[in-house]
């Protein structure tokens, strides 16, 4: 579902439910209300926020992720509903039973799509991108040569200049990337839960402390689309995560990507990707529904 992202970024706001609306108030006075039906994600980004339990229950009931962010705009937790999909337990069982070779083959598809998308983003900003097509072809099952890292090593300096470092705790460009990825992560998390898969059983990411490994796996091919938005913002003079930047980055889930079925927003692509992954786990074909690399002339 393509919906709206609600971001609560002012300290001390109170969030409650009133009929079908999420009501945000400050010191007892209502600041605004949004219809709950139509929310894609609730992102919280400030100190001293209060929620009523009703809000968390209602959003979970509708499968809307609530993302709790730390001071660097990085998500610290996502509220996860118990019941996301009617076939949830069956799909999770398939997921647990999936063989390692299958997972490796699926992971290779994701890495290939990500590298092609990185190349497309570089092409869109007019940077050198010739090697990425070749790199994507070098990815073998399970990516044992870690072509993904090699691509990243070339990608970041080409996109943001040689002195750029991807450091999650830095402000500036990194803060913008963190915010964009937080929105993307919330959206992909929603797709995963709506598809009845368990976020903690990943394909490749296997950090024991990360409860969302599958979400992190599946969002890889979409990251370069966010990078492109950040690049545009930086070119327009954005220095950090402010209102204008957030408004632009909140579109992360509705950026149009070319797919086998024509242009679709990222959110829809993510839903299709999750569905195809569930089919692969169930032994019904191994082709993941991944976005196609965009052509250089398309925004």
């Amino acid at each position, binding site marked *: 579902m*393509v919906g709206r992202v*609600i971001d609560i970024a002012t300290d001390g706001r109170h969030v409650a439910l009133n009929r079908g609306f999420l009501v945000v108030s400050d010191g007892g006075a209502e600041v605004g209300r949004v*219809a709950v*039906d*139509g929310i894609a994600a609730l992102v919280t980004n400030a100190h001293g926020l209060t929620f009523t339990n009703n809000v968390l229950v209602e959003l979970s009931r509708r499968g809307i992720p609530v993302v709790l962010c730390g001071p660097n705009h990085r998500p610290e937790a996502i509220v996860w509903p118990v019941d996301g999909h009617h076939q949830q337990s069956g799909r999770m069982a398939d997921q647990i039973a999936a063989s390692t070779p299958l997972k490796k083959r699926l992971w290779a598809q994701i890495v290939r799509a990500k590298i092609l998308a990185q190349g497309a983003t570089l092409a869109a900003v007019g940077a050198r991108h010739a090697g990425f097509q070749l790199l994507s072809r070098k990815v073998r099952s399970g990516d044992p040569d870690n072509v993904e890292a090699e691509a990243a090593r070339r990608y970041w300096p080409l996109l943001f200049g040689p002195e750029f470092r991807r450091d999650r705790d830095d402000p500036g460009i990194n803060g913008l990337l963190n915010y964009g990825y937080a929105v993307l992560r919330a959206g992909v998390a929603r797709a995963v839960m709506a598809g009845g898969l368990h976020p903690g059983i990943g394909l490749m990411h296997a950090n024991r402390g990360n409860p969302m490994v599958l979400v992190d796996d599946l969002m890889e091919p979409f990251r370069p689309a966010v990078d492109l938005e950040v690049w545009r913002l930086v070119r327009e003079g954005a220095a950090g995560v402010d209102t204008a930047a*957030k*408004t632009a980055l909140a*579109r992360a889930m*509705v950026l*149009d990507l070319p797919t086998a079925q024509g242009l679709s927003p990222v959110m829809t692509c993510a839903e299709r990707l999750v569905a195809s992954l569930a089919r692969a786990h169930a032994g019904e074909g191994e082709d993941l529904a991944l976005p196609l690399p965009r052509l250089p002339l398309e925004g």
Partner: protein
Amino acid sequence: MDQSPALSAYRIMWLIVLFDLPVGTKAERRAATRFRLGLQDLGFEMSQFSVYLRFAAGKEKAEALCRQIEALMPKSGKVHVVQITDKQYEMIRTYRGRKREPGPKNPNQLVLF
């Protein structure tokens, strides 16, 4: 980039629910209130008494909302559900007293509080 191009690209539809419900007896009043609150549960906001309004992100959503409204319908009374496109919605002129108010705004992709 201030107004959300993405949302409009998905052809926002607006639903306007106009209703006239009998409120002569206690049971009728209760049915009318239930209908009104039901509309609010669906995310409709009051534009005027007996006129409620909300946007739908696409035709399918609008259809789904219409069906939900149908299910809410009390036994008697008259309800119109008018669907207009975002372009038409933009042309609404709003007056308060004799003063003209600024035109309606589209919903943004990001709602920041």
